[in-house]
């Protein structure tokens, strides 16, 4: 009877070693993100400092001007248009779909819609871009004639709405399903119609979860690049005056500028990356304050 079992020493050593490797790998998983945050902050801040924050956010780019490189104003305006329009199109439809999924959760049809929505969430976003190009941009191009016509911020917003909708719908349905049964029963015992009960009362009860779903959906839309490649047409110098015109967006500007040779473009791209990352992480942190656990 020896409490210090010698064969245990090897296992204890192996245990410590294995846990150290595990912790090391977990750290390695986070390391790239930390480096990304650091480099985007440093490079982005340097780029923004050259023109000043307000100038950087509002002025058009002058990538070849060493004195004053300007900013990303037109692209940022394009992005704001895109976010606002895609939210206006996507969010109501997503809530509508989320209600359907949650309220008829036992019916096969609702489970099928949920399954298809999950399928759509995983649909490559570049294919969504190709789809909107075919059904919306191409017909307009044929109507006006000429290659390069037909692109518009609205087309981009349609594509982003398609990217965002299934995700938000699933989130809304989960938020509704999370409403405690007693509250549900209480809402229905008020005697209003089911439509009123669900839209006036239950959506209110689940508002935090729904808001978080919508916020993250918007963050996703704001950061997407691929669906915009074939829809918005680009143009980072002129401010878009109407959503029916072609325009730029911050992610697309980054994508185009980082591929240019001159460093002036790269600096603008880094500055734009910082703006984009700040926007997205701001939304993330806001939703984290609303609920404890976020599902992506």
């Amino acid at each position, binding site marked *: *009877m020896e*409490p*210090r*079992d010698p*064969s*245990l020493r090897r*296992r*204890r050593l192996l245990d410590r070693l294995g846990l150290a490797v595990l912790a090391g790998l977990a750290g390695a998983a986070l390391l790239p993100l930390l480096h990304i945050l650091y480099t985007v902050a440093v490079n982005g801040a340097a780029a923004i400092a050259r023109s000043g924050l307000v100038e950087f956010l509002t002025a058009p780019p002058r990538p070849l001007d060493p004195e004053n490189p300007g900013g990303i104003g037109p692209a940022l305006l394009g992005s704001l248009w895109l976010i606002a329009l895609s939210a206006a199109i996507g969010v109501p439809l997503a809530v509508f779909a989320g209600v359907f999924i949650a309220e008829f959760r036992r019916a096969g049809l609702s489970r099928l819609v949920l399954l298809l929505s999950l399928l759509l969430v995983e649909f490559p976003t570049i294919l969504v871009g190709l789809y909107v190009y075919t059904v919306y941009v191409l017909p307009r191009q044929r109507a006006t004639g000429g290659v390069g016509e037909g692109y518009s911020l609205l087309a981009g917003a349609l594509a982003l709405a398609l990217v965002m909708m299934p995700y938000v719908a699933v989130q809304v349905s989960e938020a509704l399903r999370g409403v405690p049964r007693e509250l549900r029963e209480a809402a229905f015992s008020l005697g209003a119609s089911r439509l009123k009960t669900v839209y006036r009362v239950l959506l209110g009860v689940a508002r935090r979860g729904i808001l978080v779903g919508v916020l993250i959906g918007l963050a996703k839309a704001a950061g997407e690049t691929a669906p915009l490649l074939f829809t918005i047409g680009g143009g980072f110098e002129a401010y878009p005056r109407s959503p029916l015109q072609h325009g730029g967006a911050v992610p697309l500007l980054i994508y185009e500028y980082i591929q240019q040779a001159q460093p002036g473009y790269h600096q603008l791209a880094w500055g734009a990356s910082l703006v984009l990352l700040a926007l997205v992480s701001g939304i993330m942190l806001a939703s984290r304050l609303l609920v404890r656990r976020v599902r992506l």
Partner: protein
Amino acid sequence: MPSEVLVVEGLNVWLSGKHVVKNVSFKVPDRTVFALMGPSGSGKSTLLRALNRLLDIYEEAEVRGRVLLEGVDIYSPGVDPIWVRRRVGMVFQHPNPFPHLSIYDNVAIGPRLNRMVKSKRELDELVRWALEKAYLWDEVKDRLHMPAAKLSGGQKQRLSIARALALKPRVLLMDEPTANLDPVATEKIEELIAELKREIPIILVTHSPEQAARVADYTAFLYYGELVEVGPTGKIFTQPENPLTERYLLRRI
């Protein structure tokens, strides 16, 4: 050589600061069934988990006091909890073989982890021995490599017992092993307990006084973390010294 395999002296447990086992002492003689009974929430299961240092896996748990396993205090600084656990077998309230492992692997997991055998043949023999001891061998000998998830509830619980026995433990802890079983499976487990106690002592947590009366040689009554009364089962049930015990047995509390 002391006839008590396990001696508990002044044992206290706190969970997240809440005092749930209060200064409990008792002795478990060899080859007996020792029942810990009490209403739910009385701290029986927590007390049981202090006897194989299973509480160590919970950050919020704090243990004070002595638990002597064959004379060795399992809470003294030099003792490794793994050394303790491989000498103290445990069976749970929920029949819980590892669902993704085969019947064979479920029994073999303890000996394998603890490097108890040197050859495949030795392991085969140990697995067979444990399954026979747990009254399960005849039912599963032709399908040892089937996943354990396919067994019935009673079979699963006997497999959990075999898993614990394969470690050749010095004590067997059972945490309400029949709480999730039907009466037929329960009877079979109780028969098994009566058989097993001829070789090792068993500490049985139960919320049913009837079960304690049926299978236990000694019974301790635990109420809100305090050991109200302990003694030979016959005496506890016929002449309880503490009025609380009497009220519990009469189903008044």
